């Protein structure tokens, strides 16, 4: 072990004591796309004790350009990202305990998961989940690290309950969709830069060097050669419903959550049935096959070609409709198959 981690033990900010602390910690990471791949790899290589990964997607060809844990074989096998990530992370460091959860990070799931978690890494692709992370963070007093990017533009901010402003202080409401990934695309250096900031903050928190934690909000543009460090002293909002005195944690209430979502940057609608539960993919595959559809599957999901659209159905009843951004249309396709 000492040889393996010798170069970071040599770094004065970590040392032998810091390495032991990293080893004793549990990190919850929401998302295993671009930011999740990179943050997960940094923490696994650094020797974190436990890493819990939550992701609802499977690996697609368009991910390979920037999502560093995945290969062409994962695409061919349509592996869920959480499962593919775990496979690669175990090959990198077999000492780290990896919990892979294939599913949507709902409020109730997050409240269940955070019990013994030390920090939360944001690697999601939407503000709704981030607001839920933010409320969970405040309610259970667990620091989290916001990170996001589009095009050559990215940002990061460390949120420590009781100390810094929270994401809801800054946004007040969930920003309208469609501003970003659909139109902006993404290059992988931007992802790397956000990962650098998030994972450095994560290491500081894991070794409990709270004085080193960044208090500014960083944003940058790698193509335009900009870097801004924003002082956040005046950002805390006393009336904040997530961290203020009269807090209600609005994003922990499932009733406030959307049931159908256009996935950011993708021509895809996600459908979450109001009641989730195990469905028989095998039986469904048989039915659809006899209907003449081209169906491929594995134990986690079923992929069905439907003209210009393609539906991927997970075994909890959730589905992704590729080839549309129309929520109603997507729901219609879904209901045609699953009732």
């Amino acid at each position, binding site marked *: 072990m000492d040889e393996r981690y010798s170069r970071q033990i040599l770094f004065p900010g970590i040392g032998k004591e810091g390495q032991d602390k990293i080893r004793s910690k549990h990190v919850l990471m929401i*998302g295993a*796309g*671009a*930011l*999740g791949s990179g943050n997960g790899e940094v923490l696994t290589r650094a020797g974190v004790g436990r890493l819990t990964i939550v992701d609802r997607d499977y690996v697609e060809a368009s991910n390979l350009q920037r999502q560093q844990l995945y290969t062409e074989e994962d695409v061919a096998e349509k592996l869920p990202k959480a499962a593919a990530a775990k496979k690669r992370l175990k090959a990198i460091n077999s000492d780290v305990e990896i919990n892979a959860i294939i599913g949507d990070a709902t409020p109730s799931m997050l409240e269940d998961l955070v019990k013994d978690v030390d920090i939360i890494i*944001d*690697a*999601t*692709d*939407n*503000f709704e989940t*981030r607001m839920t992370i933010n409320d969970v963070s405040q309610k259970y007093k667990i620091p989290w690290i916001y*990170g*996001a*990017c*589009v*095009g050559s*533009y*990215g*940002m990061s901010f460390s949120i420590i309950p009781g100390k810094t*402003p929270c994401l809801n202080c*800054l*946004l*007040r*409401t*969930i*920003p*309208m*969709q469609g*501003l*970003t*990934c659909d*139109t*902006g695309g*993404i290059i992988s250096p931007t992802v790397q830069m*956000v990962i650098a900031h998030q994972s450095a903050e994560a290491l500081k928190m894991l070794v409990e060097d709270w004085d080193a934690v960044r208090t500014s*909000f960083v*944003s940058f*543009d790698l193509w*335009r050669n*900009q870097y*801004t*460090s*924003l*002082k*956040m*002293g*005046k*950002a805390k*909002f006393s009336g904040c419903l997530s961290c203020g005195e009269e807090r209600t944690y609005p994003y922990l209430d499932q009733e406030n959550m959307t049931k159908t979502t256009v996935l*950011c*940057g993708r021509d895809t609608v996600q459908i979450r049935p109001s009641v989730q539960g195990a469905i028989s993919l095998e039986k469904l595959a048989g039915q659809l096959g006899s209907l003449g559809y081209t169906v491929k599957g594995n134990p986690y999901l079923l992929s069905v070609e439907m003209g210009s659209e393609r539906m991927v159905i997970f075994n909890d009843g959730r589905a992704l409709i590729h080839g549309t951004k129309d929520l109603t249309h997507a729901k219609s396709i879904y209901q045609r198959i699953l009732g």
Partner: protein
Amino acid sequence: MNKVLFFAHLRDAVGEEFLKLDVAGKTIAELKAELATNYDLPKLDTVMTAVNEEFAQDDEVIQDGDEIAFIPPVSGG
């Protein structure tokens, strides 16, 4: 006189990296409303505002010479 900077897609919407405007005495909220009227910008409610590299609330009053930046949070990841 004030320098008003735009980041990410706001910059594309405005068509310039920054504008020179005389907005001293106005609040950030007033400036946001003015910009939304004069440029093809999305609503700036959830865009973060910096005055001289420090986060500013919507009711902050702009002083002469202040440099204002609009930094839109993004959701990609």
